[in-house]
């Protein structure tokens, strides 16, 4: 936030921020319930300690904000949900460079079996998306609360919902990345999907129409189209557009509608990693958010 910090910080009374201020967990736990005006939660809940702190902060805060994509959707860590936790531990604590490995258990919090989005553990009042969120959007939220007062903002949230507050009061765009992208589009159909390192991209033209796998059609706007502007495809770090639950399904459906003369199966074969391509940030929030251990298929046979 740089020099904006100089304007914002004196307006705030910081009661817990481990990276900046020396208050401990016990200080946070000693705060009266509901006494914190706004709590910001970053990161996903990977351990019991994370879940505990999330629940404490919920109790202490009038409004709780999921800060960033990890907090809103689980983030890249959600991709660990394709393995069970025992396999995660086996890899982590016994790699090629480990001389003496063990699975630590003394005085360390246990792991959650899977990454579950924070708002499925406690109710969240607001989400600020992005990996990471950009300064402008943090200021929109903090500034909006300072300008309208917390009570008004909470009232709008309760009466009109989060999308209304974000778009009508705080000025967040309710579009996709493509709506804000300035690269030229010619409605060219896809015949092949290229890997990011293949060839040299034309900085003027739509990346998808140059056959690069760009997640723009399935990603919420608001970051300033940073990645396509830097010459690389959008990877979806802002999560799905409004009213879409499953970002990957949205992208696969977008691909189907712009690909020419090839069926979706053939197209998907050109994407060797479905999870890392379509669900890199939002797997934990998708329709199939984790490894399915047992699949029971019941077939009804008509005689």
């Amino acid at each position, binding site marked *: 936030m*740089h020099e904006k910090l100089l304007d914002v910080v004196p307006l705030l009374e910081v009661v817990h921020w481990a990276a900046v201020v020396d208050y401990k967990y016990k200080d946070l736990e000693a705060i009266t319930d509901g006494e914190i005006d706004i709590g910001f939660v970053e990161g996903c809940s990977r351990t019991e300690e994370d879940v505990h702190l999330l629940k404490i902060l919920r109790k202490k805060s009038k409004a709780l904000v999921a800060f960033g994509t990890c907090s809103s959707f689980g983030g890249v860590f959600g991709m*660990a949900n394709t393995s069970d936790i025992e396999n995660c531990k086996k890899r982590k604590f016994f790699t090629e*460079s480990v001389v*003496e490995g063990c699975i630590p258990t003394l005085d360390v919090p246990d792991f959650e079996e899977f990454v579950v989005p924070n708002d499925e553990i406690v109710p969240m009042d607001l989400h600020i998306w992005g990996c990471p969120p950009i300064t402008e959007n943090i200021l929109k939220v903090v500034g909006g609360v300072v300008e309208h007062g917390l009570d008004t903002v909470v009232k709008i949230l309760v009466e009109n919902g989060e999308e209304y507050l974000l778009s009508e009061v705080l000025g967040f765009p309710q579009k996709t990345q493509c709506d804000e992208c300035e690269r030229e589009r010619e409605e060219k159909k896809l015949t092949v999907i290229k890997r990011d*390192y293949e060839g040299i991209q034309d900085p003027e033209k739509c990346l998808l129409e140059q056959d690069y796998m760009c997640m723009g059609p399935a990603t919420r706007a608001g970051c300033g189209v940073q*990645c396509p502007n830097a010459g690389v495809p959008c990877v979806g770090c802002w999560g799905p557009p409004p009213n879409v639950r499953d970002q990957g399904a949205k992208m696969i459906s977008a691909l189907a509608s712009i690909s020419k003369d090839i069926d979706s199966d053939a197209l998907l074969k050109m994407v060797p990693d479905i999870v*890392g391509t379509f669900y890199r940030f939002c797997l934990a929030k998708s329709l199939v958010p984790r490894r399915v251990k047992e699949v029971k298929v019941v077939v009804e046979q008509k005689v």
Partner: protein
Amino acid sequence: MTTLRIEPVTRLEGHLNVTIELTDDGKVKDARARVTLTRFFEKFLEGRLMEHAPRIVPRICGICPEAHHLASIKAVEDAWDVTPPPAAIKLRELLLQAKMISSHIIHFYALAAPDFVFGPFADPAVRNLVGIITHLPEEAKRAIAGMRFGQDLCATIGGKAVHPVTAIPGGQSKPILEEERDGYLKRIDEIMDFAEFSLDLGKKITTAWLDVATKIGVLPTYYVGLTNNGVHTYFDGKVRVMDPEGKIAGDYEPRNYRDAMGEYFTDHSYTSHVFYKPAGYPQGIWRANTLARINVVDKMETPRAQEELEVFRETLGRPCHATFAYHWARLVELIESVEKAKILLEDPDIVSTDIKLADVSPKEGEGVGIVEAPRGTLTHNYWSDGAGLIAKANLIVATNHNLGAISLGIKQLAKNVFEKGILNELTIPEPLIKT
């Protein structure tokens, strides 16, 4: 028995808790530094496309995503035998220098300075960045401008201010424009002035705190850092190891990192202790980060930084084991990063558009990428299959190099405080600002 818990350790990027156990007669039974989080990058990188790794791994660290982005792309290109055009390599090096400028300034002013400005016993409500901004607005403004310079340059080269995206196998996805370059060159002398101001301040603080610095946290260990034939570098070279007596124990090619680095897991921390493998554990516990780099190098790369390395060594010796000297070492490095950024910005190649090979192909093989992150040596090691998917990944990040020594340091400090009552014997300077 009494158990003291510091939960969490604050003004630190990450999750660290400390437990100290005291017997009834006041002896330190045990002291443990516990990292309470890991997120299994090594597992969920499996099955990803190799070229996606540099765009996933920056999330390991919010402070040094640039270092992860670059160690990662080096590992990918090493596995695939790809050498990007020279201008792309210069852009990447400038990206890392830009990060060092911003990170070193943040560390000194936001994480460390509150202890010196307000004193270690000040109210936690004041002893922090917010206190610095409130009580020293002019210095805070200059620090934020310096940090901003580094972050802006990171964004210009990396495409985003945090979690860069532009390094792709075979080069960079975006050049920097001449007018962008000119803008940074216009600001750089001011940043150099600020770096010199910070170095002076760092020296004054070290002098004022010399009694503390020489009595607390003096910890003879091995040291590890990247050097280019002995010359200080963040970006490319061999891994140099120095023993506690100051002898160079070895210079290792990145590909042979496992000959030098061993990992040891304790039962109480999710982060391993990395140590010098030939010396064994715990004898081979080493440290990385600023002081380690300043200890292992024969010389700095740029002239002003070299002068300051000499002053540092005349005052504190080589190797210097005083943990407190990390601050001073950091500011010597800050001088070098600003000098080096200027040299790179003045290089005509830096605005070249010949920065990406058109023809890149995956191949089966193992690749290793090592750079220096602000907090120490950073290693990414990937195994690619023939189609360019990650079969396996191994990462050794900066914190792990330091955690063994942090644990030793905490135990040593606990003994000094609880058994020897050292706090009563130390000469602690008056706080700059009394609250």
